[in-house]
């Protein structure tokens, strides 16, 4: 998965730089939109198929509420701080921080809303966040606690980083990680445009 991600981005960059003429921009935009809707539709099916998670919610209700809320609050604080460092408007830094690790989505939304430059920052931010997650989970599980392994993962705790969380923690944490990922993934398409518009 990780390899195919790197190859498709690099392939796209090289293709865009060397081969694809600028007159194709419209088609590329169309492709982005169609692929995005298709992807979100598939993610929706996944959520619908796992409706039993709504029952599991009751068992761990408090921690299930606290983990995503803390991740959202922590990401926004970190985003605001980065915005101050680089003299960026608050609405942009908050919108970038609201990607919660889901690089494809927030990057595209901000490319459409603002510019390719801000979209790329959002995209790279989340790529780096996922790398940090992969590297830090073993240490977080060892020195902090299991629940905290979900923190850097953000929205990716339901798919790409779930296997790593699962490897270093326990089934209870995996269920919470999955629900957290669903909640945060659902919030990305809402919060990114919301913070952008304030």
């Amino acid at each position, binding site marked *: 998965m990780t390899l195919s991600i790197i190859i*498709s*981005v690099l*392939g*796209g*960059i*090289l293709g*865009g*730089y060397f081969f694809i003429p*600028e007159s194709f*921009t419209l088609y*590329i935009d169309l492709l*982005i939109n169609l*692929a*995005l*809707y298709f*992807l*979100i539709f*598939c*993610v*929706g*099916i996944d*959520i*619908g*198929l*796992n409706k039993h998670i709504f029952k599991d919610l009751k068992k761990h209700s408090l921690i299930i509420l*606290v*983990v995503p809320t*803390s*991740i959202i*609050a*922590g*990401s926004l604080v*970190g985003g605001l*701080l*980065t915005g101050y*460092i680089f003299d960026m408007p608050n609405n942009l830094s908050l919108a970038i921080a609201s990607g919660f690790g889901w690089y494809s989505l927030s*990057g*595209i*939304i901000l490319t459409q809303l603002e510019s*390719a*430059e801000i*979209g*790329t*920052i959002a995209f790279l*931010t*989340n*790529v*780096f*966040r996922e790398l*940090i997650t992969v590297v*830090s989970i073993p240490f*977080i599980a060892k020195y*902090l606690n299991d*629940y905290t392994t*979900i*923190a*850097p993962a953000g929205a990716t705790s339901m798919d790409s980083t779930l296997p790593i969380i699962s490897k270093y923690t326990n089934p209870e944490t995996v269920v919470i990680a999955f629900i957290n990922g669903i909640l945060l993934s659902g919030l990305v*398409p*809402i919060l990114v*445009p919301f913070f952008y518009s304030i």
Partner: protein
Amino acid sequence: MQNILISLILGILIGCLFKFSDKMKKINGSSQHLGIVLLLFAIGVTIGMNRSLLGNLKEIGGISLIFAILTSIFSVVLVFVMSKLILKRRNN
């Protein structure tokens, strides 16, 4: 943006209403993979076509890295403190 929400809700409804065989679940998983690859390729193309963007990739990379580090650190600290509080309450 409402198209994204419509796609999400449509997917959730279909997932809730229809029974999916393991094969169909697998197809849904591979479709997502394909969707991600297509999407990332198209994003790559828009980055590659944008020469001025590639020119300041150094600066953009630095900003992105700081965004990633600070959002991760503050998330970790908050989740750790809050989960500690909950665990303490549970044990008492």
